[in-house]
């Protein structure tokens, strides 16, 4: 049985976290350019709240300083990325405090949480203040696909540019900080489900694939959030199963649920199954 810590030789957790932060920065900067100061305030609020919460709890409960591993900063940044730029600042702060205090530190800190902290925080605020989340991504089809790819799409801060998110992830793939199985299965099963069922009730296999792939949190979730090494399976087969489940659930919530976006609840739900997936796929090649 493979047990914690899951991070083996090679990159330390600090290097991994900082690499992800750096790869996310272009998309973040572009969002600030596009949305102006409100996006910056949301990002700063979520990062600051996340760092302060981690600092306080680590000092009080564990008598340790844990900001050095960079995971709290990354969590804060990812929370900001999943929120629309126009939310009041108590939303990113509440999401960050919940993510760090409840999802992460209650279970013992980095490497011991079963749920992705950033997505846990996002789900917490989504159910608490749904009014800010109903209309976020992709109200309608943009005039041209090219403009979407270049200019970005409406929605949460991190959804603004599919191009920059994909470019940032290339480095992470090359360094094997994120593994290909989870994003491939995630995007694959999501695309299949969209192609087959999103066109209902007009008929099967008529889904609007670019709309579903390029708008909303799919790329951010598949590339940066579902790939969190702490909360995704340890085996290759396990990661494929995990990603496929995420994609299918994300499609179901987005297409048929009351919310505009389905990635966060889908990944959080699949996080719950990770220990089971690990156990069932233990004998498969890692």
């Amino acid at each position, binding site marked *: 049985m493979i047990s914690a810590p899951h991070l083996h030789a090679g990159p330390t957790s600090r290097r991994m976290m900082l690499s992800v932060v750096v790869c996310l920065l272009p998309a973040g900067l572009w969002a600030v350019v596009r949305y102006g100061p409100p996006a910056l305030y949301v990002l700063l609020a979520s990062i600051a709240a996340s760092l302060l919460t981690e600092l306080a709890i680590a000092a009080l409960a564990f008598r340790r300083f844990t900001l050095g591993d960079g995971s709290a900063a990354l969590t804060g940044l990812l929370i900001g990325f999943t929120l629309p730029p126009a939310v009041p600042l*108590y939303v990113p702060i509440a999401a960050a405090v919940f993510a760090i205090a409840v999802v992460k530190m209650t279970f013992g800190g980095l490497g011991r949480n079963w749920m992705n902290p950033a997505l846990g925080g996002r789900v917490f605020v989504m*159910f608490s203040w749904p009014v800010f989340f109903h209309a976020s991504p992709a109200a309608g089809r943009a005039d041209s696909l090219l403009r979407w790819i270049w200019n970005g799409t409406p929605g949460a801060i991190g959804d603004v540019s599919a191009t920059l998110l994909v470019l940032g992830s290339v480095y992470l793939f090359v360094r094997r900080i994120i593994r290909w199985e989870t994003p491939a299965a995630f995007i694959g099963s999501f695309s299949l489900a969209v192609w087959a069922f999103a066109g209902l009730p007009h008929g099967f296999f008529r889904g609007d694939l670019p709309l579903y792939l390029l708008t909303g949190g799919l790329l951010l979730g598949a590339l940066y959030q579902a790939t969190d090494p702490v909360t995704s399976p340890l085996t290759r087969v396990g990661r494929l199963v995990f990603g496929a489940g995420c994609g299918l659930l994300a499609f179901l919530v987005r297409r048929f649920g009351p919310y505009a976006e389905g990635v966060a609840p889908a990944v959080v739900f699949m996080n719950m199954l990770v220990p089971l997936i690990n156990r069932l796929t233990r004998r498969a090649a890692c």
Partner: protein
Amino acid sequence: MLNLRDNPLLLYALGICPALAVSTRVDNALVMGLLVLVVLMGTTLVMAALEPVLPEALRLPLALVAAAGLVTAGDLFLRTYLPGLREGLGIYVQLVAVNCLLVGRTETGRRRLSEAAPEAFGQGAGFCLGLLLVALVREVLGAGTISLFPVGSFSGTLRIGGLAEQPVRILLLAPGAFLVLGYLAALYNRSRS
């Protein structure tokens, strides 16, 4: 003996089914807690009276029958005098009859009246207080209000400015019940040790 420190809800997680379900409002929680207290006390008294003549195998079935009778009486009382609140409690009033607190008491609790009555009172009161605490946290944070009972010119609901406009609504939903109960139990256990 009377023991209010071993809170059945926060320490043993007994009776969490109604505690999770009806703790969205303080008035609901108070009525539910009192109902459990009354049924627990009543069942204990009946069982203590029957103890000398009762075969062991019949203890649990008879305790459930006694509890069901008391719950039905309580249900009729609530329907008559507090119909609005009774509506809000739903199926959970009837479910008090098979509350695990009650089954646990019958199975493992003390049997002599002089010991059983204070013990049952302690458990019932402890459950009532625990439930009130959970409901207070959930309603204040999740709705920004405190629902009490209308008296004279007081409408029965306290509003907390600021929170009532944009409350943390998830705490009123099912996950909020588990979160609040879990953290209260953790704090309670920590404060005891």
